């Protein structure tokens, strides 16, 4: 039997594009879980919320979903900051984040999902935009714009985040805050404020990731749960606290998932992330680029 080279390369390309999108989805978790040590399992719920906001404004007024998400960035930032404030006051401050804090985020995940089901039902929703549908041909391979646009935007998001985290004062403080909050106070920075800003930033990325999600695939409220395994797998695989690691791991997962669904069938794809997660945890818990 001949090895289907063309199929393989096509699948690789699809995987890389998908991986770019996964990176956008994971970037928020990479900040909240990877850097701040806050296990925000409700993150996918915020992403789905972003998808629905893009959906509403797209179908009602015909706004571009990505543009909507960029306008929504500050709203999500403040939402995230408020959620962190509640989390800090009720759980982190009292040292109860391990059990009750996790349950709190689980509750939020759940309430958001069920709330969306009650308002919008379980039908799949989709958006319309000029880049959904057409493809460009490059060196004989089709690149669907529906995947390419999210891929490029995701790379842009990573570049911006990496710049913020390594080049700005607040960014460096965010990198430092979970290592030694007291030492940070000795640098005249309030750790709670830094964490609030960082968590706001992480939720802000969910606005963009949500818009990209609904550009790539139709969305219904429980889609978010499929991403929980993926985002944490990517985050751990890439190495906690490392954005470049997250990007590499996301590409890796995208490619492996794409190859799996091409050669074994799409129904197996969700299992890939977990397999990868377990392998990472068992053999290299610090991930690819873990510090």
């Amino acid at each position: 039997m001949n090895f289907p080279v063309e199929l393989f390369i096509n699948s690789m390309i699809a995987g890389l594009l998908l991986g770019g999108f996964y990176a956008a989805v994971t970037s928020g978790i990479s900040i909240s879980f990877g850097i701040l040590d806050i296990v925000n399992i409700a993150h996918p719920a915020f992403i789905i919320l972003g998808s629905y906001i893009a959906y509403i404004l797209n179908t009602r007024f015909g706004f571009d979903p990505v543009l909507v998400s960029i306008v929504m960035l500050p709203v999500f930032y403040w939402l995230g900051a408020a959620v962190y404030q509640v989390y800090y006051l009720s759980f982190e401050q009292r040292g109860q984040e391990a059990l009750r804090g996790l349950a709190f985020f689980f509750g939020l995940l759940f309430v958001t999902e069920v709330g969306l089901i009650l308002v919008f039902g379980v039908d799949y929703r989709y958006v319309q935009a000029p880049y959904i549908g057409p493809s460009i041909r490059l060196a004989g391979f089709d690149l669907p714009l529906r995947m390419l646009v999210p891929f490029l935007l995701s790379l842009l998001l990573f570049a911006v985040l990496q710049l913020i985290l390594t080049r700005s004062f607040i960014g460096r403080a965010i990198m430092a805050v979970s290592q030694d909050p007291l030492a940070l106070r000795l640098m005249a920075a309030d750790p709670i404020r830094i964490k609030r800003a960082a968590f706001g930033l992480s939720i802000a990325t969910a606005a963009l990731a949500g818009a990209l999600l609904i550009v790539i695939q139709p969305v219904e409220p429980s889609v978010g749960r499929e991403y929980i395994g993926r985002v944490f797998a990517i985050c751990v695989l890439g190495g906690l606290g490392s954005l470049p690691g997250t990007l590499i791991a996301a590409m890796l997962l995208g490619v492996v998932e794409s190859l799996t669904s091409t050669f074994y069938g799409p129904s197996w794809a969700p299992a890939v992330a977990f397999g990868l997660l377990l392998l990472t945890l068992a053999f290299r818990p610090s991930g690819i680029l873990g510090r």
Partner: protein
Amino acid sequence: MDNRIAIEGVHAAYGSVRVIEDVTLNVESGETVVLLGTNGNGKSTLMKCIMGIVRPSAGSIFAEIDGVRHDLVGRTTEEIVDLGIALVPEGRRLFPKLSVEENLLLGAYRRSARKQIGKNLGFCFSMFPRLAERRRQLAGSMSGGEQQMLALARALMLAPRILLVDEPSVGLAPILVQRTIESIQELKERYQLTVLMAEQNFSQAIRIADRGYVIVHGKIAFEGRSADELNNNDLIRKFYLGM
């Protein structure tokens, strides 16, 4: 412009355990004052009181920065640091997973320090060439002496007026202790700092001290108005020289 600290009648306790009792102490502008005492006598707690990390149960702590008087009791640590008082904490407390350079830049988080970032960074690297060589290395992977240098340099990046140094000699080889003490003196002169240093290594500390206090069981047991006075008192002999 004057930069001084005045502590009066400060008491502090952890729960019901009294750590500091009625400590009165002052550091005048441009002085290097040492706080001598062996482990567990309350030196670090006093430092923490000044920095707002531990709240004194009684007494007052004032700081004069560039001629302006500030009441430190009741302020948060961030506010106190922002006034221009820097602490090099015991155990150095670097950010181990950040690079040397990132640690230094974090030191300049304070708004008024950001303006002088280029100048201060240049000075740190010229004073500690070792840090310049290792600027990309993770702070946690450096040796103890290098870490102490980094901790000092990081405090300097804050562009402080008053520098508090808590136990700079802990965990260092004797030759490194000597070098660290000398760098503190050099920094002080270069930046015209007011320095309060808590230290148990008497013979090293005394080399740069203008004057000092001996703290025993949370109380000031002896005040030496000059390095000589400190050198020639019975308490010091008893505690340090075993005579």
